[in-house]
């Protein structure tokens, strides 16, 4: 931070606009000279107030005191405002900080803080950042400023151990940047650790696991239900099969019934056939006489015809039958006779004989009786036409006999079958009542089966869905575990890298601090030995590595605490320490307020000679007594000189540049 200009307007003792310009070479020392009470320390205060909004009182920064900050003369003139502007250069940037305080309008006698409003502008390369002066705090923190803008009256404290001495010095050296980097690494490491914890106890994975557990449980339940339903279905199927078997048994019954029905129908058919046969038989029987007659006639014709053809013919021609007895006699020997009412015993005997023969021949021919004893010609003609051969008649007889045997056999068979089937029917009849029950039960079972099957299908569907979900979740879980494992490995590596980086930065901080400490110690010692009037007794300074407490290294190696030194020696020691510190940073402006107060002339002279070397630019705030004419001879590299003119009447000062 290289201060280039300082402007004060109505700030405390200063009235109106005042300006101190510090330009680059030749010379790097700016002297502001004025008697006590003219505003030397006010210039230092103005710098602190402008930069940090606080007033520097002795060794402390305190809140701005209103309205004392505004010059009294200016207030009397109605100019109720004060303004300070500091222009400096840092890292190639031109920075301006301007702070002002102004009484609020329409307040005739502003006296309280609330009567004023403060305004600050932080400009970087002409760009107004408003009140955002965070950059300032980064490049030049308040406590660091104390090392560079210091009051000679309190300078000795820098040589004494302070609790935050090291911290402050570290700030001056930029080590807080490294510490901040360390904090950042620590934070990042903690984030990695948190990420690791999150990954290891991944809520998503846990959720997936819980869902999976739940779904697996559901799947088991579904399987159980499925098994139950399948078991129930199996029971129903068994029941159905049993009932179907029962129904099959009932089918047997129906078979029996069918067979009985068929037998009965067959029996009826036999009846019908028997009736028909009987009818045929009756017809046949009715025809038998004519058959016999025909036979007889044929026999008569064949046998008798030749002999008594003539006689018969005659009798026939006469229109009447011959006497039956005679006729029978005539026919005697032909083996055929005919019965009649008027037959005599002999004739009847023949008839019996004939019948016996006929019975032998015809079997079933019953006694033939006829009341006809006399036939007319037409009778004979009819008989002849109806007569058939014996063979034919015998065939008819055999047919009837076969039919009768057929009927008798079948009727017996049907009877037996019916008897058998009826018995079966009787046995099964007890089941008839159950048949309906079985059928109804079977119907009910079929319905139950449909319901169970539907449930089964539903459960199977749900189970399939659940299994798919389980499969999907398992896949997700596998991916999740894989990612988890990979992420954990990566995070562990990151944590390891962070830990190594932390150790590395720690070592850099410690060793850099030590390097800086040694460097400051060396430079401070160099300055110290060039200023002290006891260079043989005190060979240098020692800075404690831990506390940064500054001690004088005596010949022989002993360390002398600052409190055992005289005020002058302590002053020199502090100046040397600050000079060494400043020198180590190689840049910036050093503002020294009354730096010679406690020095004897020897020390003072040596310090004056050393001043140009202490910093890139040095602003000396001194009294006439501090820099006497002889002293000016020892001060080199003076760039500009300002005097603080003071109006005794108005009691204000003004900064005047003198050549």
């Amino acid at each position, binding site marked *: 931070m290289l201060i280039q200009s300082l402007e004060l307007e109505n700030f405390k003792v200063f009235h109106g606009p005042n300006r101190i310009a510090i330009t680059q070479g030749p010379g790097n020392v700016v002297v502001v000279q004025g008697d006590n009470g003219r505003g030397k320390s006010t210039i230092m205060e103005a710098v602190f107030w402008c930069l940090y909004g606080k007033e520097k009182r002795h060794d402390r920064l305190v809140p701005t005191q209103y309205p004392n900050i505004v010059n009294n003369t200016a207030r009397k003139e109605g100019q109720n405002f004060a303004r300070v502007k500091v222009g400096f250069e840092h890292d190639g940037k031109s920075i301006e900080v301007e702070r002002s305080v102004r009484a609020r309008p329409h307040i005739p006698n502003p006296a309280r803080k609330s009567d004023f409003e403060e305004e600050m502008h932080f400009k970087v390369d002409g760009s107004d950042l408003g009140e955002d002066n965070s950059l300032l705090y980064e490049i030049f923190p308040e406590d660091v400023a104390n090392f560079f803008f210091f009051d000679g009256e309190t300078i000795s404290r820098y040589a004494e151990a302070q609790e935050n001495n090291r911290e402050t010095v570290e700030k001056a050296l930029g080590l807080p940047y490294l510490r901040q980097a360390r904090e950042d690494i620590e934070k990042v490491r903690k984030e990695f650790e948190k990420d690791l914890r999150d990954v290891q106890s991944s809520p998503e994975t846990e959720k997936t696991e819980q869902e999976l557990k739940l779904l697996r449980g559901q799947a088991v339940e579904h399987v159980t239900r499925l098994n139950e339903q399948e078991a129930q279905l199996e029971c129903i199927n068994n029941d159905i099969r049993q009932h179907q078997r029962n129904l099959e048994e009932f089918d047997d019954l129906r078979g029996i019934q069918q067979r009985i029905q068929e037998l009965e129908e067959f029996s009826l058919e036999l009846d019908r056939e028997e009736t028909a046969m009987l009818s045929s038989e009756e017809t046949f029987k009715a025809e038998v006489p004519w058959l016999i007659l025909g036979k007889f006639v044929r026999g008569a014709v064949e046998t008798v015809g030749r002999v008594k053809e003539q006689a018969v013919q005659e009798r026939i021609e006469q229109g009447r039958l011959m006497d039956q007895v005679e006729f029978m006699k005539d026919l005697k020997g032909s083996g055929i006779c005919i019965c009649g009412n008027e037959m005599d015993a002999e004739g009847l005997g023949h008839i019996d004989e004939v019948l016996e023969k006929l019975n032998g021949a015809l079997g079933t021919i019953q006694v033939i009786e006829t009341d006809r004893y006399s036939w007319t010609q037409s009778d004979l003609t009819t008989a002849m036409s109806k007569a058939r051969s014996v063979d034919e008649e015998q065939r008819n007889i055999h047919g009837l006999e076969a039919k009768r045997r057929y009927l008798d056999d079948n009727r017996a068979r049907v009877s037996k079958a019916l008897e058998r089937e009826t018995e079966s029917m009787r046995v099964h009849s007890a089941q008839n009542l159950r048949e309906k029950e079985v059928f109804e039960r079977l119907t009910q079972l079929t319905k139950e089966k449909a319901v169970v099957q539907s449930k089964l299908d539903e459960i199977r569907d749900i189970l399939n869905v659940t299994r798919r979900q389980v499969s999907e979740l398992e896949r997700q879980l596998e991916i999740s575990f894989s990612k988890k494992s990979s992420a954990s490995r990566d995070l562990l590596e990151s944590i390891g890298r962070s830990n190594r*980086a932390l150790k590395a930065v720690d070592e850099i901080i410690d060793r*850099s601090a030590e390097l800086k400490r040694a460097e400051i110690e060396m430079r401070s010692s160099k300055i110290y030995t060039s200023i002290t009037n006891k260079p043989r007794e005190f060979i240098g300074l020692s800075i404690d590595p831990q506390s940064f407490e500054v001690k004088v290294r005596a010949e022989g190696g002993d360390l002398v605490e600052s409190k055992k030194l005289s005020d002058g020696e302590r002053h020199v020691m502090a100046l040397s320490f600050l000079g060494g510190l400043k020198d180590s940073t190689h840049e910036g402006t050093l503002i020294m307020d009354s730096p010679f107060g406690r020095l004897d002339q020897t020390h003072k002279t040596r310090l004056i000679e050393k001043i140009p070397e202490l910093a890139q630019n040095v602003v000396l705030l001194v009294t006439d007594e501090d820099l006497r004419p002889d002293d000016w001879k020892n001060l080199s590299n003076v760039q500009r000189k300002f005097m603080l003119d003071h109006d005794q009447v108005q009691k204000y000062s003004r900064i005047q540049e003198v050549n």
Partner: protein
Amino acid sequence: MPQVLVDPALLSEVSRKHKVSEETLFKIVSAEKSMPVRTARLKEFKKLLGGV
């Protein structure tokens, strides 16, 4: 003025000792200067240390 002045030799030595790449370590020690916004810095550190 505050500044980070880390000796390159020291940086190199510490880098080897703690097995942190010199480039990473340099970025870390200079991050405060190059990236004043902390969130950006943390993001960068996370990338650096996360091996991204």
